[in-house]
């Protein structure tokens, strides 16, 4: 795997996994963008961070596809925030992405295992 630039891989991983991460995080409860970015950073131990410029367009795209739904929520003494929750369609996508990801990681492991044997 030496010939694949690690930077490219890194970016692809992030890009491909971003959807999965966002969908997972809004599975249990609605969350707003800032919340999501902080959660990703803290739960990955700082390995994964999302820039503003990619996170919000991603949310927009996911909403456009009908996988998440956003609503402006007003709270007393605060600015209104847009909270996203998982839709039924999003739940299906999340399930399938989880299993694809699992297969993929296993495949990588198998090869890595063979190569190192």
């Amino acid at each position, binding site marked *: *795997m030496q*010939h*694949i*630039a690690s930077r*490219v*891989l890194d970016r*692809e*991983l992030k*890009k*491909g*996994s971003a*959807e999965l991460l966002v969908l997972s995080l809004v599975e249990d409860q609605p969350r*707003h*963008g*800032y919340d999501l*970015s902080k959660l990703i950073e803290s739960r990955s131990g700082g390995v994964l961070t999302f*820039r*503003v*410029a*990619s*996170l*919000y*367009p991603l*949310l*927009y795209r996911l909403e456009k596809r009908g996988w998440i739904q956003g609503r402006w929520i007003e709270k007393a003494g605060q*600015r209104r*925030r*847009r909270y996203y929750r998982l839709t039924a369609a999003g739940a299906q996508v999340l399930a399938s*992405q989880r299993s*694809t990801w699992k*297969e*993929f990681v296993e*495949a*990588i492991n198998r*090869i890595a295992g*063979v*190569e190192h044997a």
Partner: protein
Amino acid sequence: MPEWPRRLSEEIRQHLDDEYDALRARGLSHDETMRRLAGDLDELASMRTRRIESAALDLRYAARTLRKNLGFTVVVMLTLALGIGATTAVFTVVDGVLLRPYAYRDMNRIVTLMETTRRGQIMSVAWQNFQDWRAQNEAFEHLGLYRGMVLNLTGGEQPERIIGSLASSDVFKALGLDAIAGRAFTPQEDDPGAPRVAIVSERLWRSHFGGEPSAIGRTIALNDEPYTIVGVMPAGMRFPSRTTDVWLPLGLFVRTFPPDRGAHPGLFAVAKLKPGTSVERASADMDAIARRIEQQHPMSNADHTVAVTPYADQIVQNVRPALVALACAVAFVLLIVCANLANLMLARADGRLRELAIRQALGASRWRIVQQLLTEAVLVAIGGGALGALLAWWAVAAFVASRPATIPRIDQIAVDGRVLVFTAIVSIATGVAFGLAPALRATSIDLLASLRDAARGSHGGGRRLRAMLVVGEIALALVLLVGAGLTVRSFAALAALDLGFDPSRVVTMRVSLPNARYPEVARWVAFHRDVAARVAAIPGVDAVGLNSATPLEGGGSESEVRYEGQPPPRSASEEATTCLFQAATPDYFRAMGIGFVRGRAFTERDDAAAAPIAIVEEALARKFFPGADPIGKRIAFEFTGGHNAAARPVWREIVGVVRHVRHYALVREPDNLEVYVPLEQLPIWFLDRRPTMTLFVRTPLEPPQLVASIRRVVSSIDPQIPVFGVLTMAGYVGQATEQPRLNMALLGAFGAVALVIATVGIYGVLSYLVGRRTQEIGIRLALGATRGDVLRLIVGHGMALAFAGIAIGLGGAWAITRLLGALLYGVSPHDPATFAAIAALVAAVAFAASYLPGRRATRVDPIIALRAE
């Protein structure tokens, strides 16, 4: 998307505010906090460009990938530059010559008319026949008459020779061009007694009158006579030739046309078809008229008809076959380039399978990846196209600068916006062509399977596709090379032709004496005799001759010829023998190195007072006097009293017999029999219409040096007479062989490029194969295969591809070289020797290209190869 920018900016603003508050809460200063946020702000600033997101990203990603593989990229771009450059250059020429519109109105309705016999012999139009055509035809809106001429323009510092034309008013109407100043000719100016008026070209108007409107009404001196300028034609008026600078009204010349229907005084017709009338219908109409005239005038018009040719076809008829062949050749080169690059991309895509598989696994759609790979291919193709356009610009400039005389509209050939649009389209199409197959294939494979296989190597499908591409490349290259080989053989046959004269060290130039200045024949002859004598006296000149015709140049006049005692024609339609008659000075034959078969040359004593004599070519002697000695026999080609039973021949005694001289062309010279008479015994046809004489000087001197001396000599006799048309005989031969030489050079170059690219293709595929099969080879060696076995395996694989390509290519060449027929001389389009030689050449090159990877395979160390797994 009306909502999203506002919504997004609100969310993002909140996010940044939250982040700011959070950082400040952790005790960071305002400045430090802003520094932390700077990265986000920068990215946001560039978000606008990111909206065309995928395309721009693909582009950047592609550029980076290409930069990372610089060697690969350079090879691909150079290959592309070659292919696209050649295509662009050929398109530039095809566009300039065939496609670009003409300045004339309704070009597709403009036709030219000539008289021909039903056997295809071409003649100019008899004046009386033309008048009948005009009265009787129903096909044409306008029917005009013209004749090219050479004029001496005097009044400036130096006398100049310019190209002119007499033209009836309908010529301008047929072409549909309006004067940019003044007017065209009126119908009154077609009639005898027309005033001495002239229309000049825009070029002459600008060079001699500074483009001033006041030029209208001024006079110019042509052939020593004053003409009043009545009009200026725009630069788009290139009729009859692109160098025509002045038009004179038909009416001034009508009285000089022979009153006899059998005479064809160099006139030609141009017409505009009525709307909706086809060329075929016009031809049928004219044929019916010709038949009526034939019935009324069987002596002069037996078997005559009229050839109606679209003017556009006539302009390009000589170069169209060559251009079509070149366009095909260059398309082949481009196809080979595409096949080769597709091959390279396929090999590289294999190397990137894992990267692509991972991207696919991470959610990139198949279309996204295809898009990405295509972007890469198109980006390289555009780079190659830009280089190619430069290459084409340079090649076309060099081509135009070499002033090929046989390419019409050469001055309009240039790489311009139109051509660049073509290049851009070709570049993008090329990128898609060589990028699409690899991209589709790279994404059509099962990704998990591919991940498993990635370590082991290639897929059957990929290998088959690559093999097919190589076979295709070899087949195309072979077709091209066979075409090139045929043009080489054809050129060799041309070069070996017997011209009938020795072109080396002969310089020619022309002098044209206006009738008005030299009305008496004796003075006219004396002038030329003087010139010959004084030029002969120039130190370093070996021999000097003058002749009324120039070999290979194709001008001159023909007339019926008979021998004394010839039985009268059995029927009116029996074809008379015609001869090309020429008036020459005694030393013409020596100056040109024309060989005598029998008899003698002219001498100073063969003057007007002596008995009329002639020198004939051997074919005429054989035809008229088979088995007999022609010397002392009499022939006649001049007749007094018109073309009818009462015509009285002027008999001339044959004093010499010479070899045939190629006159009209090097190849496909029409049957013509040559007769020479002494200048002093000028043929009666020349009495009213004097020819422009050509001076032939055999000398080791360089032309510029010689021409200066000759100008001084001519000027000392008459300062009003220009010397022009300086060209060596070798130059005439060069012009005559220009097209075959160009065909050979260009097809040869394309063939060579094709062969090199195809060779690289074979080599590349086999090298790749050896690399991928290292392990298999190692096992074979470990199991006891010899190095020879391995070499045979690899070379055998290469040669299998080569032979498949050669077989397909030979079939293709057999089918397609028929199209070259019109370009070939002295060699069949199916010449077995050429086919065999090219097949052998391609096989040999393929062998060499296979042998190198084969050798490398034999050096595989079985232990290392096995461990590689």
